[in-house]
């Protein structure tokens, strides 16, 4: 079967796993997840590809698996990217309305958005997203659709996400090298937020934190628009590494200890408790203090939340997160992680659910898949937008119009 236009594929090349999710838009515009493929990643550090050959192999595996499950041929993907080089900031674009009647047209809107994207980035950097927040007409703000309004000066606030061009291209190159087309490159944090937040939550104000293997990506919404994005190049691998160092065990064993005995809380039961560790051959290897294990984890995770809190405090956004905080990514599986986040952020914290899309229920319930599912959702907005071309002005009114990558 062929990649019909209603098939949308999201591909995340994570530090821990490579994941392809296949979605299908039915005739009523409802999005269904119909396939998932996965592979363990080799060759990615802190979200960035260091060994293209190894990654290619993983991508191929994940894509084939997803194709088989969904029974489609995948030709193009929405590709997720992350890395410590990715940054977000807010910018305003200005455009004088020149038409004789001063009525704002679609072209004016395109021009002002273009101006908002024309920013001085560090050399070698490129704009990944310029996401519309709202318009101003002659200085009056809060305008969502200025087309048809009268005014002399049109402005737009955008949230710009940018990153290092070469480093972004590394991922694109690998995918293209496999005869797969890249529809769009999307920041992972943004994708995850699309998977776990409802429109009401975006309106109220919410923070989504995706704790992956090598990075922690986060996105803030308020008033229905993206206000802030960030990447902290610290993730689950750091927890593992800290444990390996502190408990004097090999990395592989540390990862296992983290998953089997880890928690973001030190309860009374583990105090003073030890555990004997044996090698693969069953020989005694080491004795591990469970309290130490927890303490090492708590300190690392606490720090991650503290750094995010500091960043948001500086941006003046902590006060506006009325829907609270949503966790996803593999790190959200750590027991008691929400409780720890709550302590540090002093906000209600819940584990993000990807119930904004329907389909394979068991798949959707996993926090690791938030990004890939979000990528599909991102693609579906594009898709609907394509359909809606003739009524471009109207389209701006819906929330999807707020996403205008590149």
């Amino acid at each position, binding site marked *: 079967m062929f990649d019909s236009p209603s098939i949308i594929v999201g591909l995340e090349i994570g530090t821990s796993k490579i994941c392809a999710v296949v979605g299908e838009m039915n005739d009523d515009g409802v999005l269904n997840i119909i396939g998932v493929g996965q592979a363990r990643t080799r060759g990615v550090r802190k979200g960035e590809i260091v060994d293209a050959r190894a990654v290619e192999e993983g991508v191929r595996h994940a894509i084939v698996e997803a194709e088989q499950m969904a029974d489609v041929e995948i030709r193009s993907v929405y590709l997720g990217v992350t890395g410590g080089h990715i940054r977000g900031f807010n910018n305003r674009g200005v455009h004088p309305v020149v038409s004789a009647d001063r009525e704002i047209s679609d072209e004016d809107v395109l021009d002002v958005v273009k101006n908002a994207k024309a920013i001085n980035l560090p050399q070698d950097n490129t704009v990944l997203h310029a996401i519309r927040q709202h318009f101003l007409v002659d200085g009056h703000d809060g305008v969502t659709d200025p087309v048809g309004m009268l005014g002399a000066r049109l402005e737009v606030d955008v949230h710009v996400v940018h990153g290092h061009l070469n480093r972004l291209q590394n991922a694109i190159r690998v995918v293209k090298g496999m005869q797969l087309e890249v529809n769009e490159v999307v920041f992972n944090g943004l994708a995850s937020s699309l998977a776990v937040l409802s429109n009401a939550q975006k309106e109220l104000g919410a923070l989504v934190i995706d704790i992956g293997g090598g990075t922690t990506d986060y996105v803030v919404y308020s008033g229905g628009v993206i206000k802030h994005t960030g990447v902290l190049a610290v993730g689950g691998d*750091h927890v593992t590494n800290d444990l390996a160092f502190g408990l004097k065990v090999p990395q592989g064993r540390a990862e296992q200890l983290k998953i089997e005995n880890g928690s973001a809380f030190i309860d009374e039961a583990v105090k003073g408790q030890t555990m004997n560790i044996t090698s693969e051959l069953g020989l005694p290897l080491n004795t591990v203090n469970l309290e130490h294990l927890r303490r090492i984890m708590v300190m690392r995770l606490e720090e991650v939340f503290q750094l995010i809190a500091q960043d948001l405090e500086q941006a003046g956004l902590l006060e506006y997160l009325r829907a609270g905080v949503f966790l996803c990514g593999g790190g959200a599986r750590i027991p008691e992680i929400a409780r720890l986040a709550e302590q540090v952020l002093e906000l209600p914290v819940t584990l993000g659910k990807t119930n904004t899309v329907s389909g394979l229920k068991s798949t959707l319930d996993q926090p690791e898949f938030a990004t890939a599912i979000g990528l599909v959702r991102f693609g579906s907005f594009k898709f609907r937008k394509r359909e809606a071309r003739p009524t471009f002005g109207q389209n701006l009114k819906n929330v999807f119009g707020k996403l205008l990558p590149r």
Partner: protein
Amino acid sequence: MDSEIISQPLSAGETKKRSVTIFGVGTAGITMAGQMAAEDFTGAKFVAVNTDNSVTAAGAEMIHLESKMLRGLGAGGDPERGCELAEENFDRLKTACAGAEVVFLVTGLGGGTGTGVSPVLARAARESGALVLAFVTLPFACEGNQRERHARQGLEQLKTVADGVICLPHQKAAKLLEEHAGFADAFRASAHLLIEGVRGVWRLLMYRGLIEIHFEELCALLRAGHGESCFATVESAGTTRARDAIEKLPAHPLLDGGQALTEAETVLVSLLGGPDLSMADVNRVMADLNEHCPKARIIMGAAVAESFHDRLAVTIIATGRQPRTSAKPAPGKNGKPALTPDAPGFDTELLHPTKPERPSSRHVPPAPALSVEQREQILAQQTGKRGPVRKAGPRMKQITLPLDIVNKGRFDKSEPTIHKGEDLDLPTYVRRGVALN
């Protein structure tokens, strides 16, 4: 498993080639600098600056500030005259600073020379390109409020020109002494403490750090505290040296029974040990300090010297954040300055800094139309008290931690994650100095 989680021995450091000039200014300053010259501040150049012939110091180059007008009368207790003399001889002072990367300025504030000359000298030193740290004593309350006033003025001026000012009120040093000890003893005790403080900073600068503190970082710390810092040094030896040092610290009289640590905003810790100094020792001291300084950002440096085999020296410089507002001398019952056991007036803000005002953000904020102040007011009314203070971020800032101490494991080859100068790839618990025991 006991606390020896990281017990690989640390390699011995060498001394660094850094040119330091130590100035003693005025009678008290020269006396103290003279003592230092006689001790192990090897490699430093000493300069004594005076306006009269009250003292000389062996091993120090002498600079006499004279004015034709004053005919060798010196400053005579008047800081303004001291200042004029220094301005007149500004070029000479600047020449004396030439070639120094770091200038330590040691003086007793309250008289005419130390108080008047030091700020000018500090400026001269900065102009010649040096980083300037001033170590000053403040007069006893009973020396009279004129001296006290002069000292405060001098201190304020110094703070604006020097990169950092560390001050020690004589009154505090006196607490170390028996009640009926004389002034001479008290001065000696102060001088001793001040010199220990200088030594702690000196070590940070001169010994190749295992965990290095940049001088700029140190200055930033002192500046952030508006120059008023209190400090303490303890030394211990033998196998239990880390534990002993920990016990001695809060008991140190200059730290007011640990109170100064509890209230400190920033704490600089300098550890010096022998080649046998282990990371576990460092951890133990740091873990304990973390508990004693719940609010502080802690900056730690550790160095190794051959001569410190089996010994450990811990120097702490604790700084509060609130600037002193008024410089009123604390009046006694009959209008005279009080001689109370607690240093009057001077360090109280340092030891009891006002807490940060930020309300808890767990409260859903009222409509954004309200200003920040209004919101805070409302919150204060609602709760009747200030909301809980948000936990400070990573409290310990580390500048460089050589890789041979902590192997970065799986991040060895990837681009390091640096946040505000801190390498986040290193385990958080190590950076925060938490011992596992």
